[in-house]
């Protein structure tokens, strides 16, 4: 799928139930046109990972995801040899008849996400999730892969991408990334969406939710973000909460139902304690007022 303008891409993303703000559409569009990776940063739960999924959908591409963590290494990110199979093969063959080359051939190779993405004939969106959690050594390696789009396996030689995957990197900024990596990528900061957009997102993701409920829930979450919380809720939490409220058959928000369901919005005990009693009633009042004022 090719897109001739930002508007076209934005329209397709909307059809795939993903509502990007203009900045994000621009970033994704430029990533495709300039064939550069995009680095998406933002608070947890603002839809960074979702953006990659939606892009894969509209491109008709396969989404390959590499989840980063401390200690992630080549064996888990790129490839690994299938040792048990190799051993069995040596055992099964007659002594002295196995050559090293056949043992380290493609059939004994376990392909991990990066190799999959480079060595693919179909279009691919490569999501490198939470790159800030990987070690710096891995980041340097990744930089190499993203500059040449090729991977060298000593036993097999160099494998180059026949078509470049669209690459999306996400970071929660637990540490600053290398400048070299940042220079190579387009950078976009995703903030919390506007009230209008968040209501729209909830209504799309929670089918059948009454408009008033969606609007009051989104407004309440917005109020929560204004408080001093350890983990302010993201859009993902608003959607979860909308589902819970809708499942309870609610038409609107009141202090009682908020108290019962607060656990799907706030995930820390201290945060839930902060939002009790008067605070909770006050916020419900303000959210309803904000929602009514739309």
């Amino acid at each position: 799928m090719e897109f001739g303008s930002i508007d076209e891409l934005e329209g397709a993303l909307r059809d795939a139930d993903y509502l990007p703000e203009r900045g994000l559409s621009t970033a994704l569009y430029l990533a495709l046109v300039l064939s550069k990776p995009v680095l998406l940063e933002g608070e947890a739960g603002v839809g960074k990972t979702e953006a990659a999924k939606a892009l894969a959908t509209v491109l008709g591409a396969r989404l390959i995801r590499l989840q980063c963590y401390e200690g992630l290494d080549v064996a888990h990110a790129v490839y690994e040899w299938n040792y048990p199979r190799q051993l069995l093969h040596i055992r099964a063959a007659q002594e002295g008849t196995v050559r090293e080359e056949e043992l380290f051939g493609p059939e004994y190779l376990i392909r991990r996400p990066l190799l999959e993405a480079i060595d693919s004939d179909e279009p691919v969106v490569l999501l490198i999730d939470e790159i800030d959690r990987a070690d710096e050594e891995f980041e340097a390696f990744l930089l190499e892969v993203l500059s040449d789009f090729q991977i060298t396996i000593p036993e097999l030689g160099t494998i180059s991408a026949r078509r470049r995957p669209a690459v999306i990197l996400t970071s929660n900024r637990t540490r600053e990334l290398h400048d070299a990596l940042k220079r190579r990528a387009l950078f976009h900061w995703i903030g919390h969406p506007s009230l209008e957009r968040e209501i729209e997102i909830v209504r799309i993701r929670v089918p059948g939710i009454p408009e008033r409920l969606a609007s009051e829930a989104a407004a309440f979450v917005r109020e929560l973000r204004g408080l001093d919380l350890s983990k302010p809720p993201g859009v993902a939490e608003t959607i979860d909460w909308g589902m819970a409220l809708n499942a309870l058959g609610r038409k609107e928000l009141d202090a009682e139902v908020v108290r019962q369901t607060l656990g799907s919005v706030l995930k820390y005990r201290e945060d839930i304690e902060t939002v009790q009693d008067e605070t909770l009633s006050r916020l419900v009042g303000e959210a309803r007022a904000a929602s009514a004022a739309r």
Partner: protein
Amino acid sequence: MAAGDAIVGHVVTFGRVLHEAGLEVGPGRVADALRALDSVDLARQEDVFFSLRQTLVSRRDELDLFDRAFSAWFLRAPVLPPVRTRHASETVTRVGESPSERLRSQGDEEDADGDPLELGASGHELLREKDFAELTGDELRHVRTLIAQIAQMRPQRLSRRRAADSRGTSLDVRRMIRRSLRTGGDPVDRPLRARKDVPRKLVVLCDVSGSMDSYARALLLFLHAVVGTGRGVEAFAFGTRLSRLTPELATRDPDAALDRCTEAVVDWGSGTRIGASLREFNEVYGKRALSRGAIVLIVSDGWEREDPELVGREMAKLARAAYAVVWVNPLKGNPQYQPLAGGMRAALPYVDRFLPGHNLRSLEELAAVLAGIERRHAA
């Protein structure tokens, strides 16, 4: 395209404006920006804005600067271009008596004196014991090299990556298979691998309020040396508010680094709001998990101008995320010292190691503690 040249000129100049305002905008980025503008509708201001921002900026803390520059340059809004505002703020810091100024004037005196102080072994000893508050400019310069050596000791953690090691504990299967070929598939030889040690994250929060002034220079030198030991070190200064100093301290030359720090810290020599500063840290950086698994080193005398209870609350949060919390208090160098200051008392329950930091010897002790620190057993 006909309008092309004008746009190229515009973007190149804008790139230069950003560069002067402190953003790193190289020719590669400008080229990307031009390619981006080539593929969007130039009549849509929003698209032009994002295209430029996504190609020219790569850090969140630069977004604000970019936004101001963009409105000044492209929209001709009635705001000062960021270059000027920056100069203006610099002038403001220089009007007040900033430590950098004091340092600089001391540097001049040193030059007038001629040769830097030569110290024998006994001189070293004396210097090691001397309180930082009593150091002269010359001595401080000498202390600098010693501090750099001390800072080399960094706490380690085990990496998940494994390297060949004959005393290792896990099997290097790839190598074993290769070798077993010679023995008909029997793994006679068993090569081993082990995890490597890598430096553990270190976060330093240094009090630069008025009461800490006489120690701040030496401690900043220490910070500079620690930041110089590699990545994974984050440094902050606080008085009434928090300033991140990591980029400023990354300069190789200690004098230049100290100058840049004093420019970056707006509240040098002010009062202390430890609780509020810790809260700012927890909120902005703790949420980014900067402190998770890190050793957090707080350097402060514990004089809290405001509510000590807030100090306790924020220390609790910090301690929960951190691997260990070390508090360095220069006043502890005095044998008669009792932690009576409210902020200090509130913080102590969450502190794993409480150390003095008033002279070189105590910094050595600190470095040894940092290198060998164990995770606390009970919170």
